[in-house]
């Protein structure tokens, strides 16, 4: 039997479903309903629904995880009364936001005002759709997945700026401009750090990058790139200490000041979705994705869905690192932010690219072992 993939699961599901529907229909419509095209169409829908559900569930769990961790960092407990250990608290919050009235400032530009959050959430969902989570869960196994993911990831400043500008509020606009400046400044080192990984792995395909790391996680030899990547991700996700675009003390709530109700929830979900994507990218690029080194006992890697489980464990731990940073560091000023971005991060990123090139040339390092065969 070939490997079970997410799409094969969706296909089987819709095939069974349509067969069951077809069996109660007369012959004419039955042929239509059970035809290959119909099954494929439904399979694609189911596939998308599963992806959507998985991403939303993980996003909400991520918010819970952050609340619990941050609570402990602050010597308190975080959400704890709704559901076991507060697990359902965010669902309750979401329901509350869902029931709220959305309103729009009088002079706001409706098109941009509603388009901004929607597009922001939609693009964030798109990235989740193409990221491979395990050997079976890789919807977009294209040769250039990584580039595609990063491209979609960098749409965000545009939508943030559009929604901030169309809110017709000076705080929103300032937050939007800060957001754009920050994201553009950190895009460069982020991409350079990715280049270092690509040089060593020899591919833009995330699945290949993961398999290259089977016994050779890139975080060790490429630690400089990892630092730059994490810092860049923090800035891209607008998390503390780089949360200038929504610095509450200065800008009310930054670029989403004017948003309430479900539109606010869109932003919130998209923010955490991007945080999830950021953590996933760190895991994929530096921590070996869903694979564990071959010396790990087989019982740990062969149970059903082991890949997904290990992937999620790693992702949540990486997000824990982001929470740790949030708990410890104060917010930087704009000038510090941009100086650190252009003066520190870019040289460091260039250094990491250089180191990666050297690594590919040398091929073997004392502690870390040898670069996998496919290195360019």
């Amino acid at each position: 039997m070939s490997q079970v993939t997410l799409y094969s699961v969706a296909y089987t599901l819709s095939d069974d479903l349509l067969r069951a529907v077809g069996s109660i229909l007369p012959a004419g419509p039955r042929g239509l309903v059970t035809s290959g095209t119909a099954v494929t169409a439904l399979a694609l829908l189911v596939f998308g629904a599963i992806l959507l559900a998985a991403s939303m569930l993980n996003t909400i769990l991520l918010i819970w995880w952050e609340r619990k961790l941050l609570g402990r960092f602050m010597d308190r407990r975080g959400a704890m009364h709704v559901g076991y250990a507060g697990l359902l608290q965010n669902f309750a919050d979401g329901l509350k936001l869902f029931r709220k009235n959305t309103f729009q400032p009088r002079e706001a530009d409706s098109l941009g005002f509603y388009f901004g959050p929607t597009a922001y959430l939609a693009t964030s969902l798109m990235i989740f759709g193409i990221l491979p989570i395990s050997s079976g869960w890789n919807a977009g196994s294209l040769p250039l997945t990584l580039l595609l993911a990063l491209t979609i990831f960098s749409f965000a400043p545009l939508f943030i700026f559009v929604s901030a500008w169309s809110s017709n509020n000076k705080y929103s606009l300032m937050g939007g401009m800060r957001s754009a400046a920050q994201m553009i400044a950190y895009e460069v080192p982020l991409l350079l750090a990715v280049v270092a990984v690509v040089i060593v792995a020899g591919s833009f395909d995330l699945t290949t990058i993961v398999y290259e790391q089977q016994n050779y996680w890139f975080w060790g030899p490429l630690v400089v790139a990892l630092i730059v990547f994490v810092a860049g991700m923090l800035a891209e996700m607008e998390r503390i200490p780089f949360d200038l675009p929504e610095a509450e003390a200065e800008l009310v709530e930054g670029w989403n000041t004017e948003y309430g109700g479900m539109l606010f929830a869109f932003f919130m979900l998209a923010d955490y979705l991007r945080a999830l994507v950021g953590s996933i990218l760190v895991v994929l690029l530096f921590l070996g994705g869903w694979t564990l080194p071959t010396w790990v006992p087989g019982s740990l890697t062969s149970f059903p869905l082991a890949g997904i489980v290990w992937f999620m464990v790693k992702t949540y731990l990486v997000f824990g690192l982001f929470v740790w940073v949030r708990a410890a560091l104060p917010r930087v000023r704009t000038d510090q932010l941009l100086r650190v971005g252009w003066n520190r991060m870019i040289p460091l990123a260039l250094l990491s690219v250089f180191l990666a090139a050297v690594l590919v040339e040398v091929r073997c390092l004392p502690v870390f072992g040898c670069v996998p065969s496919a290195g360019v």
Partner: protein
Amino acid sequence: MTEEGTATEENPVLYVVRPMATAAKQFAKSLVRPSTVIYPFERLEDPAFREEVAVASGKPIGVGAIWDNYRGVHALNIATCISCNLCAFSCPDLCIEMVTVPGGDPKHPKKCPEIDYGKCSYCGFCSDACPEGCLTMTTRYELATAKRSEMVYSPEKLYEVFRTKLPMNPIRLERPENEDQILLDPPLCIGCNACARDCPTACITMLDVAKPEAKAGEKLPKRIWKEPVVNDSDCVRCGTCISVCPKECLFWGKRP
């Protein structure tokens, strides 16, 4: 930008590593037991809970330090209240009203404080001012009610609090050494006995004064030939006598 600012920002150890280490330490500590008291289920005043925390954290939580001077609901010992009004005078929120309670005589009713907790700021001035130590603050803190009127505690209700024998805030202000005393401007006094009648500590005695001989052509004032004498050690400085005096002949001052 200051020099230190630059130094901190460009030093990754100062700016990143040290705070992260501090946060990690805090995280490790509160993984065992965060400081949060899950209030309705855990109570600081519950000895079992305190025991549990002491065992978990290895050190007792501040029963003494926090607890003794906690300022919660008042306790009033009606029996020893002398109706001096000092508590109501000292209240910055004007939440104390003196209401009549049984036990006084008809001419001289006994009045005790009634406290409106809707206004009280728990400053404790009233219990500091109470000369008899009968109005104290306890550790009771649960006042939630469904009705606003239930926030007003009558003297009887305050007495009920007193009878629960909760730990009471024992802080008493020392009487200052050189306190002002009640002085009399003798020529104005008409000997009406109002001050002596209303003095809550009964420290005023009306003593006879000699009736002067009327000189020729002079008319003696129409008055009772008595004058108040204040026993300073019993006087609680409530000022009642001054406020009841019809001729304004009593005043604060230092006896020569």
